């Protein structure tokens, strides 16, 4: 058996054991979803670079590693350690997951407006699963995407957020996912479900960090359902260790006249794939897909966007900026799919990249699939170096070369950050970016 086949086999064996004891194993609908997802994963196998959607990203390091499920329990945190890991400022609604498992002792849930539910998916599967099957695993495409299939097979815990119609959640919901590696390579499959009713407003922040140690793999799926005339902000912060593999899929289903903003900041991880897949299902909906990725060393940061216009009069805006140093490699693959009936679509995509070294590399690829005739779709990509004329101009005014470079890079990163409206998040991210520029380690580590 090949290394890949062996590793794939190990996921199957793990599944057999997992399935028996997992939360919700007594639920027929869930059991069948898990099983068909696992079967699908076995058929698909991990993608290779022959697959058009994975042309620029070789996932062999993931496919060849025999991961075991990350150990649950036994990892203790003091509140001080937790404070060091988390983004400050989210005092009231904070869910902490360690190795994929909800930690009530580290979390805070309130006060919440009436009818709002925020908590652990595993808990809900055990306590009140009745309403889950309407949405869970209905959006992320586990039939065609191996990583979503694997995650779906292992659905158990993650965040569950439910916001009843006509509810405004003033406080952002902060989800901190901490990976605490074990003795061998470990995997977690966090599964988040966010269901926002009509005329709601909310912000969700997903933050992924890890403690130093062995190789680990975070295989995340987040499904977001946004009702009519609702406003939702989503942030993903990836700052795991240099030993981390991270594949996450954000799948958003947008109702009529809804407005969604997705923001990603990729700083950490050895091999990262950031899938963002909004479907503008309701007429007149709007989405902003904004991101910043910054790579150094040997990091590989892949951003795969699939923006689906499924209804008329929808607007989408993609802005991704990349800064790549060392021998790092970035990918921006931006798909825009306009369905037959999605007339008056207005879609725009911009990807700008700065390469700071000879060895850094970016692959940027727009992909427009337009099946309607009355649409406006534009895309543009740039790849460049820091503007030396600008550096000289700043230096000629007394500003040191190092500061001049920092200022220019901060300004470039600022194009992404200034679109992030959630003040404490933006401020913290600005700090992380500044640290990155000064090459201090922004990755969590060394306990």
């Amino acid at each position, binding site marked *: 058996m090949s290394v890949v086949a062996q590793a794939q086999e190990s996921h199957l064996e793990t599944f057999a054991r997992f399935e028996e004891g997992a939360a919700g194993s007594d639920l027929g609908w869930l059991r069948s979803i898990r099983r068909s997802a696992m079967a699908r994963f076995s058929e698909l196998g991990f993608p290779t670079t022959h697959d058009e959607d994975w042309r620029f990203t070789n996932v062999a390091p993931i496919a060849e590693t025999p991961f075991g499920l990350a150990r649950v329990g036994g990892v203790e945190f003091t509140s001080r350690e937790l404070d060091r890991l988390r983004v400050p400022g989210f005092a009231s609604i904070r869910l902490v997951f360690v190795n994929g498992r909800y930690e009530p002792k580290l979390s805070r849930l309130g006060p919440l407006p009436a009818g709002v539910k925020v908590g652990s998916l595993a808990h809900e599967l055990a306590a009140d699963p009745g309403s889950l099957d309407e949405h869970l695993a209905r959006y992320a495409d586990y039939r065609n995407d191996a990583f979503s299939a694997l995650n779906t097979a292992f659905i158990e815990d993650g965040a569950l957020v439910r916001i009843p119609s006509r509810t405004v959640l003033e406080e952002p919901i902060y989800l901190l996912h901490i990976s605490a590696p074990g003795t061998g390579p470990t995997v977690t499959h966090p599964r988040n479900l966010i269901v926002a009713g009509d005329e709601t407003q909310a912000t969700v922040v997903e933050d992924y960090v890890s403690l130093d140690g062995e190789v680990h793999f975070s295989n995340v799926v987040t499904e977001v359902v946004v009702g009519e005339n609702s406003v939702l902000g989503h942030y993903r912060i990836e700052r795991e260790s240099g030993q981390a593999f991270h594949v996450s899929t954000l799948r958003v289903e947008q109702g009529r006249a809804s407005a969604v903003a997705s923001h990603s900041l990729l700083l950490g991880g050895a091999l990262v794939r950031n899938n963002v897949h909004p479907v503008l299902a309701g007429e007149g909906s709007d989405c902003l897909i904004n991101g910043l990725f910054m790579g150094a060393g040997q990091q590989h940061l892949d951003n795969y966007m699939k923006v689906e216009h499924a209804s008329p009069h929808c607007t989408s805006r993609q802005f991704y900026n990349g800064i790549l140093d060392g021998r790092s490699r970035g990918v921006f693959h931006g798909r825009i799919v306009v369905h037959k009936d999605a007339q008056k679509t207005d879609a725009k995509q911009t990807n700008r990249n700065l390469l700071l070294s000879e060895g850094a590399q970016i692959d940027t690829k727009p992909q427009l699939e337009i099946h309607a005739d009355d649409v406006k779709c534009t895309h543009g990509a740039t790849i460049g170096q820091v503007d030396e004329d600008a550096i000289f101009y700043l230096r000629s005014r*007394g500003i040191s070369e190092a500061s001049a470079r920092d200022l220019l890079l901060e300004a470039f990163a600022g194009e992404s950050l200034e679109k992030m409206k959630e003040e404490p998040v933006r401020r913290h991210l600005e700090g992380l970016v500044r640290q990155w520029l000064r090459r201090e380690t922004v990755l969590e580590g060394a306990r």
Partner: protein
Amino acid sequence: MLSVRNLHVKVGGREILKGVDLEVAAGEVCAIMGPNGSGKSTLAQVLAGQETYEVTAGEVLYEGQNLLELNPEQRAREGVFLAFQYPVEIPGIGTAYFLRAALNAIRKHRGLDELDAMDFLPLIREKLKLLEMDDALLSRAINEGFSGGEKKRTEILQLAVLEPRLAILDETDSGLDIDALKIVAGGVNALRDPERAIIIVTHYQRLLSYIVPDTVHVLVAGRIVASGGRELALELEEKGYGWVETEPESAVPAPA
């Protein structure tokens, strides 16, 4: 204050300056004139420290120190300022922030306290008024989307804020209408000082009717071919550069 001796400069393998000699004293306003492509900007940029130009021979002394040994920011901190012929647009960095950072870098070097945003505001307001410029400029990114005239004026604003000892203005007059030209000239004249030298690089004599130079030098094909007082500028205006190019012998000798 400034002595340029036998300066040879190459760009992209081509020799642009072919032995320039120039003396500028403290308190002096010196004009350098010359046709297109004669090397005026090259000289200005080399003095400011642009590293894409290669100095192959000669030396430059600024207040007794070897200027060529200093990097651009050190020169700026020592009081050298270049108003660019083509100011650079820098998106994402606010003009006020930039000006304050620059001023503080220089103040720090001089052993002065750094100014916070509150201290800086009255200072910059006063300079804006001097140049009849709008406050709104402060929140805009450096030169981004500025008109040609706005860029030139912003250069002079920087000059007024940073108060250098040696100011080099590279074609600050080009692209300015007559009203703007008068304002800019007023700003520069306000900075005339016995302790300060100003080098005005220009193609035309127009600016020199508002900023009257003490000395005029003519640069042609990488060499100073004529030097004199302000009357030289008028003569050039009348006869064109062809006159000095064809009759180098008859040119007025450089003042001692």
